């Protein structure tokens, strides 16, 4: 706070009339309860005989955009009503209430959260903006930056997940924010007055009061500190209680513990688990053997000093490469016993309700031909007319009623084709890809360790189904081709990383073609 102290002379207030009103800004997304909360706050003040004024700018923002509501309140004096401003003034807001965490950040950028004056009440939950959601790969804003800014801009902050709290009590976030406001004790009104306002609303009163009280209690518990809970909470995967390990699996785990360095073991174990789950025990052996081969290179190159980055990343990406997404995998996942339970939880199924699911599938000939044995598959690929004829019959959108006996049996049978997977054309293609990729890794890593690690990570480009998968394979090809060309450069790893990152965002803000041209201009 740099200010010329010479001009900061104390100016005694000329009496109560020079007081400012209490000002409250509510930053929210349109249609998210900001209007309801604003109405409540106004009512609260009016019930106490104060003059209150609220303003808002609904317009287009009411359709999920960021918006702001503003309330000022003050007592009348000698029959004269105060003149209340129509928008918040940066540096002069008593309370800012944010219905979402990034919106709290936006309010800081508006300058309405300042250390001398502002109590910030914010829900820590995230409702992702479209740009965050649609970005290929990771696009979620760093909530930590908001937490940091709150720490230095707010006089006080009350932050917790008001959305979850409201949902828990079957009501909406406005009740939770109202409760937190009451707990902040900035408005000179008793808690009963808040209750009366909610009761006067007449809709869902019991649930609203429950949320209000819970939020009030929660805010009182940590009114003085910022609760660092903003990042989207990773959802715990539901697992069945662990049964004793099958002996052959136990043997495999022992082998892993013996051959893979401690640092890479958790990743390798996750990878092994995924591969076993995907196929069978032999596949697990294949995984471990492949990983051990890479690890040997890592040891030769004294990878220990680099934290065995090569082994660690190989553990991750070899597992992902081996568990390619195919029809069998999808059918298997869709028919598992745990799935129905998980969906039931997700939709909040009550005991007196039933549910069915419909899958939206669009199988194409490409997927079917991948399923059949290599030679038949290759024959089909050569015979365009047969291929086209079959494609016309197969490629269409299909609504699969998962839990009807007929459809389930069909999916179940498809999932059962796992036994024949190794003989399939798709498996042959994927295995060849894997071998080529790892061979390249083995060739390039000895001369440039970091480049080898980057190359391993390129497997990330390949994922998804149908066209998405095809595009991924093509990107992988283009990126690795370039990497081969610039492998001799000292900064090759840097370029490899840039190539990969750009490829992930290609067409959606990334320009792979442009980057390749740039590289070719000097490489």
């Amino acid at each position, binding site marked *: 706070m740099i200010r010329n102290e010479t001009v900061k002379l104390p100016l005694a207030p000329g009496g109560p009339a020079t007081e400012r009103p209490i000002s409250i800004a509510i930053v929210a997304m349109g249609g998210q309860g900001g209007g309801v909360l604003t109405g409540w706050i106004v009512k609260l003040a009016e019930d106490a005989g104060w003059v209150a004024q609220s303003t808002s700018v609904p317009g287009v923002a009411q359709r999920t955009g960021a918006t702001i509501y503003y309330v000022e309140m003050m007592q009348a004096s000698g029959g004269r009503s105060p003149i209340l401003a129509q928008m918040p003034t940066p540096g002069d807001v008593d309370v800012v209430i944010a219905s979402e965490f990034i919106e709290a950040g936006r309010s800081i950028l508006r300058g309405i959260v300042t250390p001398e004056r502002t109590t910030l009440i914010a829900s820590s939950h995230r409702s992702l903006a479209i740009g965050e959601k649609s970005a290929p790969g990771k696009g979620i804003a760093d909530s930590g930056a908001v937490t940091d800014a709150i720490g230095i801009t707010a006089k006080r902050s009350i932050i917790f997940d008001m959305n979850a709290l409201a949902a828990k009590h079957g009501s909406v976030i406005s009740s939770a924010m109202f409760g937190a406001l009451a707990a902040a004790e900035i408005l000179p009104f008793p808690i009963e007055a808040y209750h009366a306002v909610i009761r006067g609303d007449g809709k869902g009163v019991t649930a609203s009061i429950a949320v209000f009280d819970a939020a009030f209690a929660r805010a009182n518990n940590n009114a003085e500190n910022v609760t660092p809970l903003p990042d989207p909470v990773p959802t715990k995967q539901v697992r069945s209680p662990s049964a004793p390990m099958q002996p052959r699996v136990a043997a495999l785990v022992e082998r892993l513990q013996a051959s893979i360095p401690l640092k890479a073991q958790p990743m390798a*174990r996750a990878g092994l688990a995924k591969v076993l789950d995907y196929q069978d025990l032999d596949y697990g052996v294949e995984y471990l053997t492949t990983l051990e081969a890479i690890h040997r290179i890592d040891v030769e190159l004294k990878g220990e000093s680099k934290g065995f980055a090569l082994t660690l990343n190989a553990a991750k990406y070899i597992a992902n490469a081996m568990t390619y997404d195919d029809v069998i995998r999808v059918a298997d996942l*869709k028919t598992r016993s745990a799935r129905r339970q998980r969906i039931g939880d997700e939709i909040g199924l009550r005991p007196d309700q039933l549910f069915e699911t419909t899958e939206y599938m669009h199988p194409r000939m490409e997927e079917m031909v991948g399923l059949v044995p290599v030679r038949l598959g290759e024959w089909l690929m050569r015979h365009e007319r047969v291929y086209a004829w079959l494609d016309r019959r197969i490629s269409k959108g299909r609504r699969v009623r998962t839990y009807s006996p007929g459809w389930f049996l069909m999916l179940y049978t498809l999932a059962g084709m796992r036994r024949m997977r190794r003989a399939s054309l798709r498996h042959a293609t994927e295995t060849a890809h894997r071998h080529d990729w790892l061979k390249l890794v083995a060739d390039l890593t000895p001369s440039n360790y970091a480049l080898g690690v980057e190359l391993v990570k390129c497997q990330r480009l390949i994922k998804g189904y149908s066209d998405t998968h095809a595009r991924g394979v093509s990107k992988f090809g283009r990126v690795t081709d370039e990497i081969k060309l610039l492998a001799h450069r000292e900064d090759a790893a840097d370029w490899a990383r840039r190539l990969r990152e750009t490829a992930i965002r290609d067409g959606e803000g990334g320009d792979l073609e442009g980057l390749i041209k740039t590289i070719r201009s000097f490489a």
Partner: protein
Amino acid sequence: MAERSFAKEVEHLRLGEGEVFKGEAILAITKGLLQAGVSYVGGYQGSPISHLMDVLSDAQDILGELGVNFQSSANEATAAAMLSASVMYPLRGAVAWKSTVGTNVASDALANLASGGVTGGAMVIIGEDYGEGSSIMQERTHAFAMKSQMWLLDPRPDHAQIVDFIEKGFELSEASNTPVMLEVRVRTCHMHGSFVCKDNVRPAYTLDDALNTPRRDLGRIVLPPAAYEHEQEKIRHRLPAAINFIRENKLNEFFGPDEGKVGIILQGGMYNNVIRALQYLGLSDAYGNTKVPLYVLNVTYPLIDSEIEAFSRNKDAVLMVEEGQPEYLEQALNTVLRRCNVAARIHGKDVLPMGGDYSVEALLGGFEAFFETNDPRALGNRPPRPDARPVLALAPVEHLKSVVPARPPGLCTGCPERPIFAAMKMVQEELGEHHVSADIGCHLFSILPPFNLGNTTMGFGLGAASASAFSRSTGKRSIAVMGDGGFWHNGLTSGIGNAVYNKHDGVFLIVDNFYSSATGGQDILSSRAPNKTRKTNNPIGKAVRGIGATWVREVDRTYDVGKMKRVLTEALTTKEKGPKIIIASSECMLNKQRRVRPLEARAVKNGVRVIKQRFGVDEDVCTGDHACIRLSGCPSLSVKHLDDPLRDDPVAAIDNSCVGCGNCGEVSEAAVLCPSFYRADIIHNPSWWDKFKAKSALAFIGFLQARRDRRRVVLEAVA
């Protein structure tokens, strides 16, 4: 059926003498109209005046009792033309719209009205959609008032003052035979406040009186030579009459001391923020006791020269506080003071921003500069004023700028327009990019992420017309989008009729969601719900065929993405000449949910078998590519991180707000994305047959699952 019910607000309209109204200013205005004895009200909805229209729509009983005719006009020109009832008859009438867009549309009728003049009071309620939160181009209505010579009222943002100005405005209109505009800004319209009511007034002279004894005066019709006489009348009679009325009734106000070194002249609408800015400088208290002389222009056109002269004489300088540009008032002020030879310096846009909101912050900066130059002693010892600049300069706050993502408005959860644009995006991937003329309405959100479709927008209902230049395509066809609201506003003739007549070869996509949705879900001609007081259920298909269109395709369920794609592809590739018209219809989800939800809840409560649908994502099938989101943007479709070290990217997830519209599934099927989506049909109050079916199916399924589980190799991913 409007977006929300206004039954509670309607009751406010019944308040009588001495009772206190508490609520939004736009509703206070509605009440004010009834107190002023209007005979008819019209208008076109749009922020910020939609609520006026909505409340009156729901208030048919009260209006009937008072003998008031209320219409939701076809467009603003219709509304303005409605005021012609006040030309010959002593009838008070008011119309309302969003401005400047509505005034643009209405200006032909307004110019005619203002030329001939009025007998009864004629008022236009102007919702000045300017500044933050505005959805339109940034212009001022002021120019329209001047060019047609209509008086422009800009009352202080205070309910009692605004309501009083409705009454005064009608009197002014009658006293000067001139229509008036009452300007209210966005924040003022949505401002909560209170005022003491008067009884509603039933007009003494009724619409029936007018119809039964029609009057005619050739001198009131805009045709030479009367048109020339009108101009002289405006100058010689109406303007002086208005000036006299304004002065005698003290419509403009003076606050603060009579004398002062400097003074501030302000638009009425700026008053509250001006007082706050003065307060920060120690020049006023919170109750408006100012140390600086203020001259508040509650009427910003015409200016009262004698008042300006009296206020400015003996002052060193005056500051003109005038929001928006160009600075018409400041220029006029110069003329007035130079003519009367008053030497006060004139400040305005030299110290205040030329454009944008006159927020307290903006005013504060201007005031500091003004006083610094002209009366530094007034600033005293310069107590610290609110200033967020040091905070904004802190490194973590600077860093935050690059972190906080934009949050543009978008289509609602389950919006029927989403699958239309998803289909359009897919078709463009196959047939290449096309020129897309967009229109005004919810569908304009197509220009934003994730769809990024639409090259221009030219005004409400003009989506089709704005593709006119491309009528003779030989290569790719243009696509014009228009909503049902815009279609009935003017698009039928300006767009479709024009395309038929000129043999336009492009594609015209009419988005029909059964309401004027963007403005709050008001009924229109093609609305499908029965409406007691209006004639609805007039299909768009019938209208376009009636006007001569031959290639017309109707998609009755927009969520059928495959069909939408096929129809769009056909329209873009067919050999047939002439406009290709596609009408894509599905009910606005916001309105549908409001309609259906209570019914469903009641049915469930009463034990009726109800199936509710919602979508979900199998997180282990989803690979985190987010292609589905790039074809959707649905608020309920988001992403989440999985607790899985093998995964790099967050996967798609659908939250509880999903309404089961089907877009996710249809899109992933039509675009061949991935099989992650499932639709869950939740059966409330299942029948015995449902239970039996489920039980037997699950027994069979359970047997199979147990069989496979026994053979599975299992390893916990975490040791």
